[in-house]
């Protein structure tokens, strides 16, 4: 019996992984030829290592004789407004032969299933139409000309920025650490571009010896965070005093840090061992011998289920009637991101997802019924 389950689980996993594989075939963008043409080491916009995504590289020759090289079309698009009047020639890399070709005459495969590093929707250039067609056969997608592809790239910029943002954010903390521990202190706002900043750090050895990855990390941190102040440190685990008791059920809250929540008023902070108790209190403070009114509740903080960090309770998303139980049984389970809440809802058989304002007292007390 046991084995049947095992086999079934493995079978399902295998099928799922096959479909997943078909859906998102990774397309290796890294240069595989011996001497890729690099007019510079790093991308003019993102300062990323160019050879890592050489197959999607672009080189723009300007009328003043200057050249700029970009890691991908999306960075060219980002820079397009600044350079569009001065363009002399645009060269793209043929994804097949990895030779430089005239971008304007190339064939572009857009909207395929191939994943690239910097863009949510890949746009891959080919010199010969036959190569493009072959690629479409493998990955799907449409064949377009340069103008339309550039138009698409500009249109997709917002989405791409969003796409990269999440990845970048995880690097900031490390960037901060590198800066604090390894670098001499200097003002990052003195540079015009990220590339200048990175080049300066590298040539002047401002951070000593660094791996290329770490160099990029610290540059990104300085450019995108440090220039505007220090890294926000509010993403912390909620601190619960040892003697704080939940005013609703009377249990010590520090014993259940996974579920801790609090309401802050002018005079007092109430701690709860779950959002359910917090909501009970919130809707009817007088029932729990509190003189506070609804409008006294300045701030509501809850613990995000996935990250276990303290988040703003009023902006959070709550999943109800899932199969995950807190210390008080069924709980509204808080998430900072709507996407996370939706994933959780699906995976843990939740019934509803509500925002803070959408929750009602009956809904909260309804969690205690055993008939779910």
């Amino acid at each position, binding site marked *: 019996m*046991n084995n049947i389950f095992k086999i079934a689980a493995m079978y399902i996993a295998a099928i799922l992984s096959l479909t997943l594989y078909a859906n998102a075939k990774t397309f290796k963008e890294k240069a595989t030829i011996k001497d890729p043409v690099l007019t510079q080491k790093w991308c003019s916009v993102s300062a990323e290592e160019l050879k890592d995504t050489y197959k999607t590289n672009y080189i723009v020759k300007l009328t003043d004789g200057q050249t700029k090289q970009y890691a991908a079309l999306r960075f060219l698009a980002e820079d397009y407004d600044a350079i569009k009047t001065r363009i002399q020639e645009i060269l793209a890399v043929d994804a097949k032969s990895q030779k430089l070709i005239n971008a304007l005459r190339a064939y572009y495969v857009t909207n395929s299933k191939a994943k690239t590093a910097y863009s949510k929707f890949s746009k891959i250039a080919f010199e010969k139409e036959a190569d493009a067609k072959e690629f479409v056969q493998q990955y799907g997608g449409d064949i377009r000309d340069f103008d339309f592809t550039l138009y698409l790239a500009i249109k997709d910029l917002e989405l791409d920025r969003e796409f990269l943002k999440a990845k970048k954010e995880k690097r900031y903390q490390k960037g901060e650490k590198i800066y604090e521990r390894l670098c001499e202190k200097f003002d990052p706002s003195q540079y015009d571009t990220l590339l200048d900043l990175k080049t300066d750090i590298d040539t002047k050895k401002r951070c000593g010896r660094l791996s290329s990855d770490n160099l990029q990390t610290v540059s990104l941190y300085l450019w995108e965070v440090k220039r505007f102040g220090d890294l926000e440190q509010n993403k912390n685990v909620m601190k619960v005093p040892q003697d704080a*008791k939940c005013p609703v*059920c009377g*249990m010590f809250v520090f014993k259940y840090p996974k579920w801790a929540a609090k309401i802050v008023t002018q005079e007092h902070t109430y701690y709860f061992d779950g959002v359910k108790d917090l909501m009970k209190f919130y809707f009817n403070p007088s029932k729990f011998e509190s003189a506070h009114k609804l409008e006294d509740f300045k701030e509501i903080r809850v613990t995000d289920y996935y990250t276990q960090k303290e988040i703003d309770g009023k902006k959070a998303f709550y999943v109800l009637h899932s199969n995950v139980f807190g*210390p*008080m*049984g069924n709980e509204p389970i808080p998430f900072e991101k709507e996407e996370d809440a939706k994933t959780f809802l699906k995976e843990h058989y939740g019934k509803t997802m509500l925002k803070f304002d959408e929750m009602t007292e009956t809904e909260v007390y309804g969690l205690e019924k*055993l008939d779910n």
Partner: protein
Amino acid sequence: MIFSKSLVAFLFVEATIGLLFIFSFYFAYMILTRWNFNSPSKLQYTLEKRDYFVSLILYFALSTKVVLLPFFINLLNSLSEKLPGAMCAAGVVSANEYGQILLTLKVVIIFISGTWLILNAKDKLEVNLPYIKPRYYLYLALFSLILLELLIEYLYFTNISTEEVVLCCSALYGMSSAGLTLPFGLDIYGVLSLFYATWVLLFLSYIKKYLLINTIANIFYLVLSFYALTYFFSTYVYELPTHKCPYCLFQKEYYYVGYLLWGSLIGGSFYSIAGFAVAKITKFKTDYLYRNSLILDTIFIAVCTLYVVAYYLKNGVFL
């Protein structure tokens, strides 16, 4: 099959006791069939001496079993580490159909061997050993139970699979179990009031010396206590309204209070039942046994109540 240090040691000690019993069985058999107190024969004197050996073995077996019972509980708790899904002994006990039987059997064996020893002491006080026959019939019962226990232990431990997922206590007793299964169709407050009422009955029947009523009430008390402890008092020990389990009480996090609670409860029932049995078989007064029983039962109810009161005093609310 599951394998661990504690298990090896446990089975070894159990086997040792079993071996001693088999060793003593021949003597016991001879006493049962050949006993004739008035005969001045050498055989009779030998049998009298052999009686000492049997009682020595029983004394040893009982003391070992009493020490071994908490060790067994601890063993079950530690085995829960190896079973997927189990958080405490609850899952291990329910891993197959023998677990519950084995636990019950262990308690029954302790009850019988304890009664045997009290009977033995009373017997030795008489000049003509008048209770030797009932003692050895009881021995026969005990002997077969010990062998049965060994068999069930073997079946139990060899039939625990380390791959099959067992139920955790929350699934067996808690929130997500298929509804509370309380006896007599009562709700938990019904059980509680009955529980306290039974204690009053115990107290009164002891004062008034209605011993039969006291013993019956004690058995009733044992059953009610199981439900009251599992579904009500344990939540105050865990300080968690959703955590209902009779086994987690034995864990370190709760200061091993389970040993005190279950120990006093089982001890209380034992003294009452032994008191009744001894009074029936011999002419001795067994008031002191009933007194011990009442003391232990009272300790149990007091500790349980204290948890609730302490929680209320500390937190100002009930769970």
